[in-house]
Each structure stands twice: as structure tokens, then as C-alpha cells.
């Protein structure tokens, strides 16, 4: 059995001595300066000075015998002088080992390439307009999730992938909005109290996302502005979906299922075919 590579053992420096008066004075006696002692103990040089002398390094007078000076911590303050604890992920070699494990299984990368069939529009053909819109929303959410999964500071490949998903999202959204205009908003205007205003608000949100998508489409895939714009787009989309969720719930409660069916299908496919 091959012996696995030995990770760098945790040696001196991994642990630091406690910043007590004894340890600071010992080091002072050994001729080390306060900045050096601060580095040794993992604390600020001024704190080392305060620990050793009891005098604040800023020159202010020492606190007298008040029982509770301002800023006093009732549970004690030793944790403030303790050196920082090392995290286990700081073990040298860990990140490399994980990468090697992933690389040893090329099937993982291959499986990741076979993209899920997200973003195939035209699933919202249910008779019930509410069900149809929710199905469309599900597809949009999957695209949003896919967009979120692309690492922000990734490779050129990631940037291309992000651009491609954004493009698919844009196509999907325009088809979806056309379909909504066709069926959903008329139903809302007729069936839901204050429906006109709701539809207006949704239109305004759609214009916003449309504007952002348009700006994104004009940027090259590698552009540095894309990340911020994409975040803005995702926020706007989430707000829009949340708003439409509340509209759908109101519609569901205001209009009986039978009636919703007579409104007919969303006609997403039809709307796309028309274009």
C-alpha cells in the first residue's frame, strides 16, 4: 500500500505562548523588542507593553483602583490576550490533498459537464393559468440557481458559462413575459382587487430586469463589470419572482380553479411561436 504523503507537521509557531506578564518579561530580558514580542505572541506590541507594565501604550495614565473601570469585562478579558487559535484548514497540504482527490476521479468532472436540461422553455402549458406560471417560475429559478453556482472568481470557462446561462435566462424571460402579458395580467386585472396596479408594478419590474439583461448582453464575457451587474440582475429577478408569487397566491384565492381554467392556458409556446 503506498504510504500517503506526509503533511507538514504542526511545529513551532503553530502554537504561541500565552501573553502573560511572565512570558513578556522573559522575552524582554532576552533582549527582544516589543514589536518582536508582539509577533512572537500573536498580539499587538502595545498590548504586550500593557501586559508587561500595566501602563497603556498610548501614554494615558493607568487606571486606579476603581472596581469597574469603563469598558471592564465582567467575565474577564484573558481571551483578548490569548493568541489566535489556528484553524485546522490551515494545515499545510490540505487544500492540495482535496484537489488531488477530486482530480483522481475524472468521472466527477465529466458528470458535471452533462448539464441538466434547465432552461428548456415551454413547460407552462397547463390549463390553469396559476399552475402554468408556477411551472415557468420553476424553470426560471433553476436557471437562476445555475447562474449562482458558477463561481464568481473563476476561470475564463466560468465566465463563458455565466454569459451563456445569462443569455438563456434572457431568452426564457422574454418568452415568459410575453406569455404573462397574454394571459396572466388580464386575469389579474379582472379577478384580483387592485389588479391594475399590480400589473403595472410587475411591468415596471420587468422593464428593470430587461434593462439589466440588455446591458449585460452588450458586455464581453470577461468584463469586470459583469459580476456586479449579474448580482443586480439576480436581486431584481428575486424581487420580481417574489412579487409574482404573491400575485399568484392572491389570484388563486380570488378566482376559483374552474374559472382559472376557462381563462385558458398560458400559451407560452404560442407566444414564442408568434415571434
Amino acid at each position, binding site marked *: *500500500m*503506498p504510504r*500517503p504523503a*506526509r*503533511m507538514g*507537521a*504542526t*511545529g*513551532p509557531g*503553530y*502554537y*504561541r*505562548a*500565552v501573553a*502573560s*506578564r*511572565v*512570558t513578556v518579561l522573559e522575552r524582554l530580558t532576552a533582549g527582544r523588542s516589543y514589536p518582536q514580542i508582539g509577533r512572537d505572541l500573536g498580539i499587538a506590541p502595545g498590548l504586550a507593553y500593557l501586559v508587561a507594565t500595566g501602563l497603556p501604550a498610548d501614554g494615558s495614565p493607568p487606571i486606579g483602583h476603581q472596581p469597574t473601570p469603563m469598558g471592564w*469585562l465582567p*467575565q*474577564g478579558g*484573558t*481571551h483578548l490576550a*490569548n493568541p489566535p*487559535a*489556528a*484553524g*485546522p*484548514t490551515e*494545515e499545510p*497540504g*490540505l*487544500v492540495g*490533498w*482535496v*484537489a*488531488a*482527490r*477530486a482530480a483522481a*476521479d*475524472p*468521472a*466527477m468532472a465529466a*458528470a458535471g459537464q452533462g448539464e*441538466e436540461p434547465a432552461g428548456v422553455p415551454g413547460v407552462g402549458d397547463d390549463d390553469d393559468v396559476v*399552475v402554468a406560471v*408556477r*411551472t415557468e417560475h*420553476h424553470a426560471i429559478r433553476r436557471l437562476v440557481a445555475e447562474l449562482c*453556482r458558477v463561481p464568481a472568481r473563476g476561470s475564463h470557462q466560468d465566465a463563458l458559462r455565466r454569459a451563456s446561462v445569462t443569455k438563456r435566462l434572457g431568452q426564457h424571460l422574454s418568452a415568459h413575459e410575453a406569455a404573462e402579458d397574454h394571459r396572466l395580467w388580464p386575469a389579474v386585472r379582472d379577478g384580483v382587487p387592485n389588479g391594475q396596479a399590480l400589473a403595472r408594478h410587475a411591468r415596471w419590474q420587468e422593464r428593470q430586469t430587461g434593462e439589466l439583461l440588455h446591458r449585460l448582453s452588450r458586455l464581453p464575457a470577461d468584463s469586470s463589470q459583469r459580476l456586479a451587474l449579474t448580482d443586480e440582475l439576480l*436581486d431584481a429577478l*428575486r*424581487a420580481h*419572482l*417574489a*412579487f409574482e*408569487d*404573491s400575485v*399568484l*397566491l392572491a389570484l388563486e384565492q380570488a378566482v376559483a380553479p374552474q374559472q382559472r381554467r376557462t381563462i385558458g392556458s398560458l400559451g407560452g409556446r404560442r407566444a414564442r411561436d408568434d415571434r
Partner: protein
Amino acid sequence: MTRRPPRGPVARVRRPLVAQLPFLRHWSLLQQLAGVDRPGRGAAVQSLRTTRLAPRTATAERVVPSVCPHCTVGCGLQVHVARGQVVNVEGDPASPLSRGRLCPAGAAIGRHLADPGRVTTAMHRPAGSDQWQPVDLGAALDLAAERVLATRRRTWQWADASGRRVRRAVGLAWLAGDGLDLEARYLADKLATALGVAPPAGTGPLAVLADTTGRGGSTGSLPDLAAADCIVVVGADLAASHPVAMQWVAEARAAGASVVHVHPDVTATSALADVHVPVRSGTASVLLRGAVAAVLAHEQWQRRAVVAYTGAAAVVDDDDGTVLGAAGGAVPPDPPPDAARDETLGDRRTVLQRLRAAVAVDTPAAVADRCGTPEALVELFWRTIADHSSGERTTAVVTVAGPAGPPDAADVVRAAITLQLLLGNVGRPGGGLLVLHGDADAPAPVGVPRTTSAGKQQPARLPVPADLLPGRGGGPGPAGPDPRAVSLRKAWWGAAANPANAFGDDWVPRPDGDAAARAAAAGGGWVVLGDGAVPVTGGGDWDRQVRALDFLVVHGTAVPPWVEAATGASGPEVILLPATHPVEHRGTSVSADRLLQHHEAAVEPAGDARSALWVTHQLGQRIRHLLAGSADEADEPVLALTWDYPEVAEGPGPTDDDRRHRPGDLQAVGPSAAAVLAEANGWDATGRLLAGPEQLRADGSTACGLWAVCGVLAGGHDRAARRPAPDGQGRLGRGWGWAWPGDRRVLGNRASADPEGRPWSERTRLMSWDEERARWVGDDEPDIDPSLAPAHRPAPGVPGARSGIDAFPDRPDGKGRLAVTAQPAPTTQPAPTAGRPPSQVETSASAGGVEAR
């Protein structure tokens, strides 16, 4: 002091005398008069002895952050080390769980390490003998590997009596104490499963929680108890068994909360309680069922919360309301996720109405009769809880699993969570259900070194892979293969788990009931791991089972009493492996409130003592070596395991000081706990550590050994090692460690807001929907997709899709399950009494001493 003090400058007059008699210099009166400290409240009155005192920490060379292993409260420790020895152990004042406090057992950790009775070499006791022989650690491990493999071959089973393929080794059981680190538990699970040790069919309190809320863990957190308006402590003397947890009960009471204590005896906890309800031992669950019945009968339940967040409205088509549910025989049965709903709750077949029918027999009179409690107290009990449960107020329930808790802990948990769901208390600040484990051994006199760390009993059980394997991930379900199950098998078997073999689906043994009992019946063997956390009590069935065994591998800091007792002709062969104390190795501890806390190694392991992680890894290596080249189909999963962890020192590793004070090779080298944790956290194809279980995929492009902890290492930063100062933590202690799943301190916290996303009241605000930002915001990590609007309803026919009111996303239907145990066993005891009848000493999986698998 009759003479008048002399006038003038005292110091000058007295100087010659002071010089001759140095003690006069420290005479407080003279010092006062000298003007050093005229009021006599400071330096003047300090004695010579006091001036010479120095804190033990002053000479410490390093301070190591650690976590107390004794019970599952998870108190923070600061271990001071000098010259390779622990010189002082004290509570970490920054810990949000303990706030610097320690119970006597925790404070005695330093003594435990130096206990003269501690076992630090491997030992062997042949079958039928009572003589221990010290053996070389490597030889002991070789012997253990041989015994495991021999028993495995002898008791291998491809199919059970009904012909169902099970591929398991019925003669083997792996048991773990609850002080075991997450990494060791995970690795033991991996090895045992590959060997064919069947996962247990869970019936314990945590399995009930997994069944009712979707996660096998407490719903709340300890610091959150302080926000409760009423705290019900069921079946445990919390003040004695978990004194540090009791501080939160005391704090809530100081702020005006009512405390109710349900226990056979008047104890220290009852002394602090407003109401003490004495019940017969083992009938606490009956009292809670009675409360469920009364709350339903008096229409005191919270309708809006119940309709939105529980399965109350689901219609169970099967007309036979007595059909037992899958887990633990609960009624009413769990409806399928796509069951029809009647939100008026008028239908007789709805879960709520069926529950009403199931508890109809639990009238106050019947409860009073069975519990041996006056009817007036039964009435007061449920009324106190109901009065403190509303939009403005919340009640929390606390109970304990294991010997310190009620014998009927699983039934208590089921009834309590149902009561809490009905009253709308789950997911809200100061609400929910907290299940502590173990026992801090508080009654042990301070200063007596414990030869066994007796406290740790019940594992803070993560939904270990076992929960995923049977049925749910075994094959493609209606929603296709479970991404969590596929990712798990990718983590265990790497490239060997691929689409061609359904990602190693067949390599997983099918679940078993009580694996420990079955192994004993088959004359097999147990491997008991636990850093010394082995059952202290034994007795009854346990002792019989031990005597029926062929061999026993015990990893502990001492010989457990039940092993010592199993001598004579029928005694099994015992291989004892010396265990490290948790301050001698690094790893991640899991507390009862699901908090993962990293602990560092403070000192080198004593003698040959090794951690459970090290032992498991070595055992695996030896077993794989013995099986190398085997063409047997049964050995495939063992040989295909990914077992190549980078190696690091078990202890802190030699520092310059160690080299000076303890020359020689100090390093016991073992698998890196950080690497094992990384495997549990999971990674994607590019080797990036995953940020959360939502990133898991069923196509084999992600590997993740334990979905519940997925995200603890997100971005390569170990969140379990976070230890910020108290001022950076907030009320729930967020920022300290990491709580599974997804760092949520309160599970189901979607339910802290009403169905429209507004807080039930300002006083109980936790999470709420922010219209502007279209996000869930609040003091906790939302236990729902943060962008899922309250009004969101999923498209029909999308498996696993969640609505904006699904507060328990890991339940099949997203709703809390309302149920009570089908038929609680009738009690025959004459009157309330302490102590437990011998028949209730539990040995089964996750019910008592240890978790079996």
C-alpha cells in the same frame, strides 16, 4: 491598639524598627498610616502571602482552545500547558454555551489525564480468562483486524429469510460513545458500512426528531432558552446532570419565565421550578400525551401555525387510523407528501382529527391514574404550558436522552414535539425542543479522578449516512437518486462509485434492527469506540449479550466495569486499545444543540493511547491489507474505499519546549482530522470545498460524506474553529462554531414568522420576510431558501419543491409531523419512584448507553 497613633511622618520615625522586623512593613495599619492606601481597601491590606500568589496560567507556555467532552453541552475549555503537561483547565469565558462555567467533571479534566488507573498500553484478555496481558499496540490491532474478518466471513449473509438482498455481516456491531469526535464517527461509519455492518433502524429520541422535524437534532440552542417564557424540564434532574445548561433555565426564570419540572423525585431542579409534577418513572410521555389531548380538547392550539407549518391538514386516505407509521409505531400515519389537504381541518381523515382520536383516551383522569399524579396537577401542567404559548409568548421543552433522562425518552420526544407544534412553539425564540445527552457526573466528589469518563453516553447523533442509505438513497426514488446519497458514495468510494454500478448502491448493507443484540446472538463481536466513553452501567441484557460474544474490541481510557465483569468461562476474548483523552488529539466535537466546535490537541497522547480516528484508520488499513487481492464480491467495497488520508501528529506536535523537556520521538502519526472533515464537508469536480447541501448533485459530480455538515468548510475556512469574543456573537452565539445544518441555530425558524412572513410579535421576532430586498432576514440563518417568498407555492409535479410556508424543508412534505407513539406500554409500578427498573436498562441502538450499528 490602645495607644494613640503617633503624630508626624510615621515612616521616618519607625524606620529602624521596620528594618529589624520586616513583618511590620506589611502591617496594614502602618501602611495605611503611611498613606499608601488610606481607606485600607487595596495594597495596604494585602498580605505577604497574597502578594506572592500568581495565577497558574502565569507560567503556562501555551493556552489551547478545547471543548469539554463529558456531556453534550459542549462547554468551551482553555487548557493551559507547561512543559508538556496540563497545568490548568478553565472554562472559556467567550463560549456562548457555557460562558466560562464548568461543572466539577469538566474542571477535573486535568486530573483525569494523570489518573494512575488509566490504561496507556494495549491489553489482551483471552476468552474465559480474567488475566490481562499487555501487548504491543500494532499486534493488538492486527489481532483485532483478524478477528473482525473471521467473524465477518463466518456470519456473512447475502439475503435474509425472505430472500431480500441484504449483503451484511450479522455477527459484527460497531458501537460508539458520544464523546466521539465527528471525524472519528464518520470514519468508523465508513469502514463499518463497507465491511457490511448494517446501519441500525433508528428508534431512539433523535430518530424520532428526524422523523418529526426532518433533522435528528434539537430544534433550538442552549442560549436561546433564556428567551423562553416557560421552560418544561422533562424526566431529568438538569441541575445535577447538566449544571452548565441549567444556567440558561435559571436565567430565563430570573427574567420572569415559569419553570415546570416533571420528575419522579424532588430534586435540585424542582427546587428552582415553579411547578413540580411528580410522575411514575417512565410515564412522563403519558403526561405529555395528556397535554396534547387537553390542548386539542380545549381548542388551545394555534390554528394558523398548525395549518401552515404542520402536516395537520393532510388527508390520510387509508381509513384505518391505527396503521402504524414507519418509525417507532406512531399514529396517525405519516401521509405521503402529495396527500390531499383540507385546510379547514374539518375532514375526519385529516391528520389533526386522527390525532384527536388517537389521544382521546388520555383524559386528565386517565393520565392522573397512570402517572400517579393528582388530577389538579395534570391540569395545571398543561394549562401552564398553554398559557405561555401564543403569538407573544413561547415555551421550551428540555429533556435528556440516556441514563440521566426519562426511560421513555423517545416517546417523550414524540409527544413533546407534537405539543410544541400544536402550540406554535417550534422554530421560535425560546421555543422548540432541546434533547441533551449524557450526564456530567455532577454528584461525583470534586477531585476524585474518574477511571472511566462516565458521562458521555448518548451520541449527539448526526443524521449519519445510515439515515440516508436504507430505502431513501438505495435506489432512484420518485424524485430520482438522492443527491446526498450519491455524493456520500462518491466520497467513500471515489472513482469506484460510478454510474456503471449505480454509484456503489449495492455495496451498502441493508438496515438491521438492534445490530448489537444481533451480533451477540450470532456469537460475533463488537468494536466499541469512544475515547473511553463506554457504558458505565451495563447489567441485564447488556451483560448477557457481552457474555455471548466471541470477541470484543474496546477502545477506552480504562477497562469498563462491564468488561471487567464478563470474565470466567463464558467471557469473550477482549482486545483493549488505549484511548486518548480529547485534549490529546484534535477534532470536532458536536454538542446537543448541533454545534460543531473544533478542539485542539493540548498535550501529547499518554503512552500508546491513540484517538478513535487513528484506531479506525489503522484497523481499516490492516483489514484492507489482509483482504488485498481478494476477488470475493463481498470484499469489493472494502478494497474500493478511499483510505489515503494525509498524516499528521496526533498530539500538538513537538514544539521547541517539548524537545527541551521531553526528548525523543513524541509523534504518534495518524490521519489528519482536517482531511476527514473535508471529506465529510465535500467537494466538487474542481476540488472546491462545497458551501452547502444545496450544491450536491445526483449525477456524481460532487462528493460529500455527510450532508448535514456540508458547508462547515465552505471556502476553505473552518467555521467550527471560530471563537470570537462575546461582543461579536449576538444572542444566539452566532459566529461561534458552526451549527449543522447550514449554521442554523434554531431549526424551522421560518415558523418564527406568520404565514405572510411577518413576526408573530415584536417580542418573539427571529426571522421575517423583507419585501424590499426580497429576502428572509433576522438574527439567524433562515431555515428556508432565503429568496423563497412566503407566498411562493411550488409548481405541481416538481418532486422535492418547497413552498414559502414549508418550515421543515427536510421532511418529505416540508411540514412538522404531528403524531404520538401508538401504544405506550402500560406501567405496573405502584407509585412514583426514583430509579429505573432493571428491565429498562437499554442496550439497543441509540436508546441508551451507546449507539449501535
